[in-house]
């Protein structure tokens, strides 16, 4: 028997489905929040009369670079949330960011989204000034521990010229990040000592190349290469500088000595020392895995985290990297210190509970630097379950759960830099984590790098861009042309043409606008 669906029946059925869907879409979200449903025996009186403590205000934090990729074990995350909620009655949540530029893209969309919660995120506060709130009153009222936890100079970089504080410091002034790493097993094998100067570095690279023809110099990008080496050739290193001729601030590449550095790097390139894709989004991890990277002037965590993982996975006991702290060139220290600048954690303008954010941060930083317990809870989980103290007075603790998928992955964290410099973590086997040991040892030592001239100036880039709409183009032009020079696509004989090109792109305007802001902090 066959059945025929009449138009009338079809329409009736369709209406039922459409109506049902519409009704369910209009339902309150009670089913999604079972706690809101009345329990057996409970009255339907307002929550305020039945719950002794008011509902926990919700706080949502942006969490980039999740070490485990997928984030925390659900049970461990819930346990950390409970510790926080029991202590201060705040419901803290973390949003795991996608890697790379996709993360920036998602963050920019979420900051302004009307439907997605996002209260705290990290970045350059001057770029987000219109999208965030000043924190002076909140910090005065709820954040006394926060104010004490960071050095005064860092707070200085969080303020605009009117004294408004727009965030709390993320990180600090970095001198531990850009070192020139060498394969120590190759140095030993070839009976070479760890280079202490740029000249010695060149000799070692040449010896490596002779003994290991496939060996290469690899760097994260041209900016990191400059941070590792430019100071050896110029007075100010990788920094803007004040031109004594006209007292105006100028970009780093115009300072005397920059061309010498460029010529040296082009020479390295022409000799075939650099890995050929090193300035083109090279996959650092894949390159390290080839075991052909003899010298790595670049960002430290590629060695302290990625290389460590490669060693562990490949059971590599002999192969390793090391560095000399304070390599020098003809003009002094090769390394340039990275100012903390405007790097901050910020609260979005759409945040509904900013006081809860500061309360949570204040709780995290309670007792720092002597007692870092709460900050470690926010980073690594519940004391004595996820980690335990080995020596509380020295800040040394041990992870009890290390495995991804089983551990809490730190997604409720809202601090980096301080107070991490006061900790030292050992893994479940008792071994100190190389990454943290590196930070612990080198992060507060600024004696081996060049401090940028404007390290204490929090430039308001958004304001500069309003007056100089071509700022992004200007920066892109410099990036692309410097890479062309480095890789020999543009001969050094065209340097003067490049300078003319940069002038045409707005060099004078750049100089004028940055000098104006610089002078607010450094009067002439």
């Amino acid at each position, binding site marked *: 028997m066959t059945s025929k669906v009449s*138009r009338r029946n079809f*329409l009736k059925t*369709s209406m039922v489905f459409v109506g049902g869907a519409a009704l369910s879409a209009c339902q309150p979200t009670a089913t999604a929040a079972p706690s809101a449903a009345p329990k057996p025996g409970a009255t339907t009186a307002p929550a305020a009369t039945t719950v002794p403590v008011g509902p926990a205000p919700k706080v949502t934090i942006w969490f980039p670079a999740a070490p485990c990729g997928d984030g925390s074990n659900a049970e461990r995350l819930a346990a950390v949330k409970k510790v926080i909620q029991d202590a201060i009655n705040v419901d803290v949540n973390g949003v795991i960011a996608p890697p790379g*530029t996709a993360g*920036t*893209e998602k963050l*920019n*969309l979420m*900051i*302004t989204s*009307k439907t997605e919660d996002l209260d705290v995120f990290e970045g350059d506060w001057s*770029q*987000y000034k*219109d*999208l965030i709130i000043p924190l002076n009153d909140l910090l005065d009222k709820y954040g006394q521990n926060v104010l004490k936890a960071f050095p005064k100079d860092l707070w200085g970089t969080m303020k605009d010229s009117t004294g408004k504080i727009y965030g709390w410091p993320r990180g600090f002034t970095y001198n531990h990040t850009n070192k020139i790493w060498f394969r120590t097993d190759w140095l030993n094998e070839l009976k070479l000592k760890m280079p202490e100067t740029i000249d010695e570095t060149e000799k070692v690279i040449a010896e490596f190349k002779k003994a290991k023809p496939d060996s290469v110099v690899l760097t994260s990008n*041209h900016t990191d290469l400059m941070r590792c080496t430019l100071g050896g050739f110029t007075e100010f290193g990788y920094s803007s500088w004040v031109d004594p001729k006209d007292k105006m601030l100028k970009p780093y590449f115009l300072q005397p000595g920059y061309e010498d550095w460029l010529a040296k790097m082009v020479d390295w390139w022409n000799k075939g020392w650099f*890995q*050929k*894709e090193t*300035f*083109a*989004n090279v*996959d650092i991890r894949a*390159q390290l895995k*080839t075991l*052909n990277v003899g010298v790595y002037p670049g960002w430290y965590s590629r060695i302290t985290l990625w290389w460590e993982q490669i060693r562990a996975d490949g059971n590599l006991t002999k192969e390793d990297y090391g560095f000399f702290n304070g390599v020098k060139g003809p003009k002094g220290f090769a390394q340039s210190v990275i100012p903390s600048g405007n790097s901050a954690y910020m609260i979005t*303008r*759409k945040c509904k509970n900013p006081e809860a954010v500061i309360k949570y941060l204040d709780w995290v930083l309670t007792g720092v630097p002597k007692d870092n317990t709460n900050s470690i809870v926010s980073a690594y989980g519940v004391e004595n379950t996820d980690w335990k103290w080995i020596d509380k007075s020295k800040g040394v603790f041990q992870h009890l759960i290390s495995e991804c998928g089983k551990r809490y992955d730190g997604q409720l964290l809202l601090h980096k830099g301080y107070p991490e410099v006061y900790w030292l973590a050992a893994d479940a086997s008792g071994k100190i984590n190389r990454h943290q040991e590196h930070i612990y040892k080198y992060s507060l030592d600024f004696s081996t790098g060049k401090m940028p001239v404007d390290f204490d100036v929090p430039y308001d880039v958004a304001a500069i*861009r309003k007056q100089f*709409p*071509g700022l*992004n*183009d*200007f920066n*892109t*032009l410099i*990036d*692309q042309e410097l*890479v*062309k020079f480095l*890789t020999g*696509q543009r001969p050094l004989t065209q340097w003067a043409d490049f300078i003319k090109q940069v002038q*045409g*792109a707005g060099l004078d305007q750049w100089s004028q606008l940055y000098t104006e802001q610089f002078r607010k902090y450094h009067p002439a």
Partner: protein
Amino acid sequence: MDQIDLSLPKISPSFPPKKSGQFLETLRGLKRDRFYYLLIILPLLYFLVFRYLPMLGVVIAFQDYDPFLGIEGFWTSPWVGFTHFTNFIKSIFFWRIIGNTLIISGLKLLFGFPAPIILALLLNEVRSTLFKRAVQNISYLPHFLSMVVVAGLVRSMLTVQGGLFNQIVRLFGGDPIAFLTYPEYFRGILVGTTLWQEIGWGAILYLAAMSTINIELYEAAAMDGANKFQQALNITLPGIAYVIAIQLIFSIGGLLNAGFEQILLLYSPGVYGVADIIDTYVYRNGLLGRQYSFAAAVGLFKSLIALLLMVGANRVAKWVGQPGLW
């Protein structure tokens, strides 16, 4: 015997229908075909909500839009007129990104447009069904790979250390080349990748069109002594000319879509000079640089040019005797 009525039907005194009559007629039509009108409501809503309403957002191209204000910002953000358009036209990269967009698209059109037609013509002549199906399947499978996967494959194949192409270069005694870092190779890689990914998928439409050609035409041509090449040239190609014309109009309309994802995943500062297109520029300034109004202005500029191109292509198609899109 019944008399046959040969008179003309009586004309209603209200013919032609008055306006009120037209209205009633429309109502009657609506009632009669209500089932079809109901069916079309959802698709129309889809286009209205997801295609036309978002177009209101272009207003931010003329404002200094504050994203925190959401839709409210459309009428409360300060009006700046054509400032963002002027800034874009004054940009040092204006001519470069316009040029790159047109050159990359042009190259893709030049090589990518005829390639599926040629493949379809060749496949049409294959007599072994098994071979034909196998080639079809193999050639259109890459279309289903996401661009992220394709970019990963391209990077792996072209990398200096262990990449397939550099292994071949080494085999012939050459030095490895970092293909993706050299401007002279970059556009070729883009076009080659697009060809590889889309040739099979593009051929499907032409094969379908070829199947509608009357087989008797081929038989007649064969009897007249036409060889296979002459048959393809004089029967098959004219038989699918209308599809080629429509596809060409679409391709020209999309000329400013030079392959955003592909370029974004493969380029680096060293090749910006030949690879930076309108979409990557919008991405860097808009989504990464948070200049939403500026990015909207650039996007609107691009859409207007694309519209002009499409109208122009449609006119040309009609001029040469093809049906065109409208």
